[in-house]
């Protein structure tokens, strides 16, 4: 069955008409020379450039139509575990759009961007204080990018001790985010997996057997992806350090402990912070993020280019060469300034007290939902503990009774007007649903969400087909992922083959 284009909003290439225009440039105010004199024929484009041709109103309607078909925090509850979908303050968007921040060139003279550098310098210091670390770099583009960089720092540390060749292993828990092992592999390490214990923490005895002269680092999320604080973190840190390894902190779950505990005090040597999670910068439908890294003293010499420093003579901030021990550069320019600015504004508005209230409320909201769900008794809860900012429960019972999977329940939840929790992660919990309400949601929303989860559980018992075939009320029903992967269609087709696609061509 071929997709019927009339069944969904038209693609850009199915709108418009050849010759239609939306934007007019100013008239060319310099003399023109024949293009062949400037660019020889073999260097010029010969292929036609087939792009849509629309009026401005058509473009506005197109993207407004698409916006209406998109779930977002601004639309409703979005309790994706490990994603911290909190409210993104509007004032930050306003500020980021000001020309004084958005219209700066990265290679401008440092004297002409002192305001921007001041924000970066202060943010570095705030993040160090929040994480309990000594120095920070704002360069990484995202959490995974920060992980890769953090592991490069760890590698450089071992190299200077003559141990790079023997310390080949990075240990990650079986509950770790997928980026942890992927980053370790990218940084040239072998990945060793440490199991979790029955309380959902790292199995300390197993870890003790695993560490040794081959250990480069342990990567840990704390609270972990089960939403549980690693109660034995001090023993874990000591175990790894005694073996000569370093501790890497995946900051994806930092929202749970802001102002309450600090990774630096726990013994972590490198920390990344997801500014797009913890510090309320919008996720943008998948990005941009910012994955700032903070380190202990011993790792400062390896930090990447560029480093920010204050000239003692003039008091001015400038970028300086990080020196020969640096791991080099991991990104062009100086990081995602637009994201950094929003995170800075957020920290300034909240202050110490506000950040602590964020963590307390995030943890309150998660435990509240967990308590109501546990009391109702529909779902299995694998770990009998208070959670931190998120909790994991299982649809194992629904699977056994009706053959339904966590993903089916998730899809049905969409019909109730909620974005579902993360499904099928962490991998160590069968039919996992991982729920992170975030601190910005009201009690009414949480109550309604829990009621809907219980309604879905009841439907799973009484009318499982309704759940299996969900969603029923969204613009599309369950999409055929097998087909999408077997018959890859990754772009619109050649317009010559389809009359309904109306691409214009450049003259």
């Amino acid at each position, binding site marked *: 069955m071929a*997709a*019927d284009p009339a*069944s969904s909003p038209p693609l*850009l*290439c199915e709108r418009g008409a050849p010759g239609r225009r*939306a934007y007019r440039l100013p008239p060319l*105010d*310099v003399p023109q020379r024949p293009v062949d004199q*400037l660019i020889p024929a073999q*260097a010029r484009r010969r292929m036609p*450039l087939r792009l*849509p041709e629309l009026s*401005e109103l058509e473009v*506005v309607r197109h*993207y407004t139509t*698409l916006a*209406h*078909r998109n*779930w977002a925090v601004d639309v409703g509850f979005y309790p994706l575990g490990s994603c911290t979908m909190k409210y993104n303050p509007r004032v930050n968007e306003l*500020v980021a759009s000001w020309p004084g*921040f958005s*219209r*700066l060139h990265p290679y401008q003279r440092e004297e002409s*961007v002192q305001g921007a550098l*001041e924000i970066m310098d202060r943010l570095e210091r705030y993040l160090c204080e929040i994480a309990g670390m000594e120095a920070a770099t704002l360069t990484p583009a995202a959490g995974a990018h920060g*992980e890769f960089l953090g592991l*490069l720092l760890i*590698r450089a540390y071992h190299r200077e001790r003559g141990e790079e060749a023997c310390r080949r292993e990075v240990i990650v828990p079986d509950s770790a985010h997928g980026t942890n092992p*992927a980053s370790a*592999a990218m940084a*040239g390490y072998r*990945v060793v997996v440490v199991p979790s214990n029955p309380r959902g923490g790292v199995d300390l005895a197993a870890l003790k057997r695993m560490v040794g002269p081959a250990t480069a680092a342990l990567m840990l999320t704390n609270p972990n992806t089960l939403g549980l*604080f690693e109660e034995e973190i001090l023993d874990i840190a000591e175990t790894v350090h005694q073996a000569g390894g370093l501790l890497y902190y995946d900051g994806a779950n930092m929202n749970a402990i802001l102002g309450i505990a*600090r990774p630096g005090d726990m013994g972590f040597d490198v920390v990344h912070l997801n500014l797009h999670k913890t510090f309320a910068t919008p996720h943008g*439908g*998948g*990005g941009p993020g910012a994955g700032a890294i903070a380190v202990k003293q011993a790792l400062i010499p390896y930090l990447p280019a560029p480093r920010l420093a204050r000239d003692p003579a003039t008091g001015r901030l400038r970028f300086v060469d990080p020196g020969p021990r640096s791991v*080099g550069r991991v990104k*062009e*320019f100086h990081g995602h300034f*637009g994201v950094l600015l929003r995170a800075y504004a957020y920290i300034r*508005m*909240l*202050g*110490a007290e506000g950040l*602590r209230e964020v963590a307390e409320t995030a943890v309150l909201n998660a*435990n509240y939902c967990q*308590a109501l769900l546990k009391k109702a008794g529909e779902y299995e809860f694998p770990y009998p503990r*208070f959670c931190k900012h998120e909790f994991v429960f299982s649809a194992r019972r629904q699977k056994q009774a009706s053959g339904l999977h966590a993903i089916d329940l998730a899809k049905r939840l*969409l019909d109730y007007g909620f974005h579902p929790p993360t499904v099928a992660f962490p991998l160590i919990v069968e039919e996992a649903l991982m729920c992170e309400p975030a601190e910005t949601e*009201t*009690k009414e929303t949480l109550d309604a969400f829990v009621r809907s989860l219980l309604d879905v559980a009841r439907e799973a018992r009484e009318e499982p087909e309704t759940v299996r075939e969900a969603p029923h009320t969204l613009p599309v*029903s*369950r*999409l*055929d*992922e097998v087909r*999408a992967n077997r018959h*890859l269609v990754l772009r619109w087709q050649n317009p010559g083959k389809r009359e309904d696609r109306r691409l214009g*061509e450049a003259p």
Partner: protein
Amino acid sequence: MFVPHTPAERRAMLDAIGVPDIAELFADIPASLRLERPLALPRPLSEAELLGELQSLAAQNADLDHHPCFRGAGVYDHLIPAAVPQLASRGEFLTAYTPYQAEASQGELQALFEFQSMMAELTGLEVANSSMYDGATALAEALFLATAATGRPEVLLPRTLHPEYREVVATYLAPRGLSWQEVPFNSRTGGMDLEQLSALLGERTAALVVQNPNFLGCVETEAARMIDLAHQAGALVVMVVDPISLALLAPPGELGADLAVGNGQPLGNPPAFGGPHFGFLAARADLVRRLPGRLVGETVDRHGRRGFVLVLQTREQHIRRERATSNICTNQALQALTAAVYLALLGPAGLAKVASACLHKAHYAASRLASLPGFRLAFPEGVFFQEFVLEVPFDPFSLDDELAAAGIIGPLPLYRRLAGEEWKHRMLVCVTEARTRQEIDRLVALMGRGGSCHGS
């Protein structure tokens, strides 16, 4: 701030949990780790105070609205239609996560599918992913792909590659034991030296990188030959390109390149002091299973209605873990969507006009600047698009001081950004369609006087 509960609600929630206070929920944190003092941060600001503080910080920055910019080097000041930020900043796009539940995220997925389609079209290649962090990391990841696909350990980078791209590639390649060599350039054309390229290509070469236009602004007019040579040696070719230039210049796919990457900022994204921008990555269809990053594909729902989903997720870290093609997760979806809106508004004719205006304005500026006494183009036989290297009879850094004093963000002094004494008197000049003739003429007049604004 931004926390909604009243004290009564908080109490009710604690009661439902069955704990006397919130501290009880943190009891599993060892006592020695609990921070017994407030974080040392400045006092919280109200929104009005925050706006005041940030206004004063913004005022310390010389923005491009008030300071005509002749600096490029990877980030370009192009005109952005007003509708671009208006549409791209809608809350439904801004505050969404990665579209993991496709049925609830058809808007984002369709927008990214359209983005992929237009990037494939621009680059002349068959597939494009839905974005990378930036051009430099897109290049590094493309080179990982090439070394894996060919089983070879070395890549060739042009000496005229953007220096920050070279630094990023070097950082990425090192831990995997991969290496790189530089291909020198021709000192008259500013393009890659073909003879030296032939000598460097060999059985160890996984990939050749061709930047076009290169960091010096020069168009690689012999790109097709370089690509042939690399293919004859069994290597893949990755082109680093400027997306605006592709309306005018031969796209990578037409030249025979296997992969194309670049910084997509010129497509409707503001310079933003260097980010967030986005990287794009396009490839031949047969390389699709090796690509890093998210891909959106078309499919149908149960009723045969068209819809879009993330595809080939088994390449990605959340499924494949340490065997994934890359660790990338968060990408630059919003900047990619911004680029799609820009392309939709410009259309093929609009984009061609932008490219043409850049070309003519840059050539007008070049001919006027090169006719000043003591000035000349560093690569007299070179072909260029919107940037060119100018040799000046003064110290470029003092010239830059003078231009700054006159309110102009002048051409980029190249000394110390590029190794060698030959760059001591050279500047990289960029002129886009956003510069007016009046601004160009003023730049020429100021530079002719050694930048001095006295008497102007």
